[in-house]
């Protein structure tokens, strides 16, 4: 390999790396470390997610899905292995930095919506921006923009208990998008919804992925839901055992 080739390949690998939103190498998670009941939940996961990917992680309960999600979401730290999120080394960062990573790089969408009660949809969407020190005017402007994107602008002043499940999840998606995160992390986002509203929510995800280039990681136990994602990873007993393309990839 001559010098020019070396430089070119270095540049390409740098380009490749810059295209990676998630890079995991040998991620292991053990609970009760050093005790008799020590339990290894993840056995060295290698995972790369590129910018603009829409990945489904499928697995039965107990497969380590939640643990993996917590680590990806910077809520938990791996026992061993290395993890870069959007080029940032998430290894051994102090709590304060982990908070900032969650705030800026990750948008959580939960099965149970997890909107904050007695707080309007608008304020809920503003919340991540509040913790990100975005000025009040800008917060409100962006929150309204996001709410209209998910079709909830007319419910901005409603509190969570005045909204239906599907509406709550749409507000939650708007909230997850607030700080324009590197990745949307959706954990069973349709688990508490009927099929019609599930469809609406999934369509929003497809729209965000297709038309806004948002990288999405969907964690689910439903094969049917996973089939509409371009890339499906199957997790079993703490290992990724299969990777394939979805059979019913949807284009919105």
């Amino acid at each position, binding site marked *: 390999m001559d010098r020019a080739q070396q430089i070119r390949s270095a540049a390409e690998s740098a380009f490749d790396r810059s295209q990676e939103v998630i890079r995991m190498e040998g991620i292991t998670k053990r609970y009760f470390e050093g005790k008799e009941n020590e339990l290894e939940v993840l056995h060295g996961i290698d995972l790369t997610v590129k910018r603009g990917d829409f990945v489904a992680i499928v697995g039965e309960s107990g497969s380590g899905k939640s643990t993996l999600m*917590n680590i990806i*979401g910077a*809520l*938990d730290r791996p026992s061993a292995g290395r993890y870069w999120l959007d080029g940032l080394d998430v290894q051994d960062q102090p*709590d*304060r930095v982990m*908070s*900032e*990573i*969650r*705030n*800026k790089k990750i948008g*959580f969408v*939960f099965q149970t919506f*997890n*909107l*904050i*009660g*007695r*707080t309007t949809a608008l304020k809920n969407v503003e*919340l*991540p921006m*509040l*913790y*990100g020190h975005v000025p009040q005017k800008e917060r409100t402007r962006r929150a309204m923009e996001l709410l209209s994107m998910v079709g909830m602008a007319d419910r901005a002043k409603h509190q969570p208990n005045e909204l239906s499940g599907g509406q709550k999840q749409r507000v939650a998606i708007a*909230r997850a998008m607030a*700080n324009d995160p590197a990745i949307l992390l959706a954990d069973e986002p349709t688990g508490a919804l009927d099929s019609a509203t599930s469809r609406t929510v999934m369509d929003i995800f497809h729209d965000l992925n297709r038309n806004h280039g948002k990288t999405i990681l969907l964690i689910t136990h439903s094969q049917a839901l996973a089939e509409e994602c371009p890339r499906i990873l199957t997790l079993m007993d703490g290992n990724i055992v299969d990777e394939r393309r979805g059979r019913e990839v949807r284009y919105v």
Partner: protein
Amino acid sequence: MFENVRLALGSLRANKMRALLTMLGIIIGIGSVIAIMTVGESLTGSLNDSMSGLGASNLTVSLTQKSSDDESAGGARVRMFAPSTPGADDLMTDEMIAEYRAAFGSMVGAIELTESLGSGTVESAAGSATVTATGVNEEYYLTEELELLYGRLPADSDGGRRVALVSDQFVEDAFGGTVSAVNAVGQSFQMSVGGSLSTWYILGVYRYDEEETGIVSLTAASDEVITTMYVPLGTAKAVNGSDAGYQSFTVVGGTVEDQELFISETERFFASYYTRNDSYTVETSSLSSLLETMTEMLGTVQLAISAIAAISLLVGGIGVMNIMLVSITERTREIGIRKALGAPGSAIRLQFIVEAVVICLIGGLLGVAVGVGLGAVAADLMGFPARASVESILLAVGFSMGIGLFFGYYPANKAAKLDPIEALRYE
């Protein structure tokens, strides 16, 4: 910060009853402190006012009976008093006063000599008026704040003449409006004072000031106003047939640097005349020292009640801490969500500290309102104008915030340290 206050108010609104019960300890604690402070402030304030009207810095020199010590059979000392009136030999004389003046120089501002003539009543076809007649020397007018309306003040050289300085109120009452105050100068009236009926001429008229009478007015039961009639000292002595001396007089301090020392030196000076007098000696007292004693006493009472209130505040603070812990347990999931959305521990801590401070601040403000109200009612019942103590109100508000900070820190810190995964899983 504003966002945190809004959040705290929202969470209090959601649990109004609980918030109020939590605040109760703070309200009672702060309320009782403020109430007792208000009463104390009102009391000392009105005492100060009435005393300064009477000349709080004045020094009263008076004869007192010596106590005779007896060794009884049991060996115990028994104080025996033989009540008597001082004889002519016992009284303080003009010579003593002259020597005192010479010895103390400019420290003595003025010496007020008085001779009481008791009270007398004028009855005429037009009306009636009662006065307390007092013979005073010229110096008396230097320090007593009398506003002369018409005529002139009696001088020492008027001694012996039946002339008087009366109040405008007296003129109105005695002459029933037939003689105006300006025309009263030179008028005469018949009055029996000191046991003899005689004719008195009005030399001057002063303005009767209701407020100046201070404590004295409290004792006047009827609506009849008793004013003072001032006559020359020499006249009073002549009427009383006494020329021996004085049982007491008032010294007004001049250029005095150390009031305490001046008082004790004055007492020593006069007492030296009485070392060989078996039954009498001289004592000095000043209203300011009396006032000091009373204020001190009041301060002790206030301190005692404040200590009890402090216990109530402590209990209230623990109540706040308890409710904050409950609130944090209830809102574990909310804390988890906030952390997942990127709230650092410090933001969570601040949120709950602000909530605790807001609870205590509202409690403190309500307590101040309750305290000022109670204090005002109590002061009113005791017949004093209510005065709120601004310092103690500010202190109370600050203190209640401090309680919120102190008792809110532990629960808030607990919330800040919650593990987000555990918290999100919490049902």
